[in-house]
């Protein structure tokens, strides 16, 4: 019962802060001078990126926990978190070009952050594929935990290599970088949106975990059925 109330509270809070974020993003925040309204994409592009990174961090933490403790719950959380992380990572990769095209005239630039996001997307899509193609649940948990650890340790290395690579292969400099000259109301809007997306992440995670719990329950009943038969 307490669990249910907690869930309702989480969803309610998410909805309220969603409305607040929508208001702030579209009506309250001032229009950026050089880019115009398009800059408002920023308010859900950046929080999506934050949620994706946060989700992959959780995958790493719970993968480590699984390797040490071998508790199936940790594996479930890793799986759910990776899936939602990939969802938000995809959103970053879609909203990025939609922003880049009107603002800079190109769909894609191999800038460090965008490229890192793309590589991360590839790593965690591969993670989900590994899970999908592993028939044995126990091996699946162990292997994906190892990959969750290896993949995350790779992140800073990918980042530094891409950043250094960018400095050696200069492309036309994009005017108005993502965080240049952020006015206080803009910052406030961004912070509220970050909060909203984080809440949204946890709400989705709860639903995803409930799905897994029900799945296990179904398997358990099936097991009992087979035993009595």
């Amino acid at each position, binding site marked *: 019962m307490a669990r249910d109330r907690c869930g309702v509270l989480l969803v309610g809070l998410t909805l309220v802060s969603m409305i607040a974020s929508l208001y702030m993003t579209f009506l309250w925040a001032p229009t950026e001078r050089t880019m115009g309204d398009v800059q408002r994409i920023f308010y859900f592009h950046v929080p999506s990126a934050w949620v994706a990174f946060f989700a992959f961090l959780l995958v790493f933490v719970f993968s480590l926990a699984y390797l040490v403790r071998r508790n199936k719950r940790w594996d479930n959380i890793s799986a759910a978190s990776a899936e939602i992380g990939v969802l938000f990572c995809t959103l970053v990769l879609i909203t990025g070009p939609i922003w880049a095209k009107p603002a800079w005239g190109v769909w894609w630039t191999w800038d460090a952050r965008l490229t890192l996001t793309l590589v991360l997307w*590839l*790593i965690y899509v591969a993670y989900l*594929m590994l899970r999908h193609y592993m*028939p*044995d649940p126990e091996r699946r948990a162990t292997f994906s935990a*190892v990959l969750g650890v290896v993949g995350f340790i*790779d992140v800073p290395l990918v980042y530094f*290599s*891409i950043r250094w690579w960018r400095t*050696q292969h200069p492309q036309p400099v994009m005017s108005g970088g993502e965080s240049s000259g952020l006015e206080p109301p803009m910052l406030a809007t961004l912070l509220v949106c970050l909060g909203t997306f984080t809440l949204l992440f946890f709400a989705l995670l709860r639903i995803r975990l409930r799905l897994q719990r029900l799945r296990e329950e179904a398997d358990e009943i099936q097991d009992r059925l087979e035993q009595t038969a």
Partner: protein
Amino acid sequence: MWRAITTILWKDLKIELQTKEAFSASFVFSLMVLVIFNFTLDLTTEEAMKMGAGFLWIAFAFGGVLALNRSFALERDENCVQGLQLIPVDRGGIYLGKCIANTISMLITEIILLPLFAVFFNIDITERLPYLLAVLVLGTVGFSSVGTLISAMAVHTRMREVILPILLLPITVPVLIAAVEATAYALGADTDPSFWMRLLVIYDVIFVTVSFLTFGHILQE
């Protein structure tokens, strides 16, 4: 531990000498990649100088994937993986033996491929040869360190030939970037490779260590 490393190494190299499967597959495939690059891009020597490092590492990476797939496929026949699980040695040692064997087998392919590359694209590889060889070794160690670990996972999946490159290539992005940049310097480009060499060393150390520590989990049932 030492015993496990040397015995695995001895066994894998002996099998490779007998069958030459990893070598022939990866060598022919890498060669094909180089030839196809030449056809599809039709480069002048100058352009080839600029992009040669990239071609070379694409060829190495694709060939390496084939060699790595083979590495645990041969443990799968007759359930030899169970033999690995039974033997009373440190499993990190088994990893290191496998990793060294894969590195050696990839390096042999690469070193034979190198002069062919020089001939095909009219590139002088002798100018900074020791440097080039150092890059080759560091890059290959990085590639096979994660590759050996993932190859051990991939044999237990459905679609195992496909899953290895899909898992491995994104994770080795830093190695590939660093190796290409450092190789470009070795082929005569006018850049500073010290950052890339450092990155390669760091990557190698991190991933050999992480794989060494986690391989026991992969091998157990």
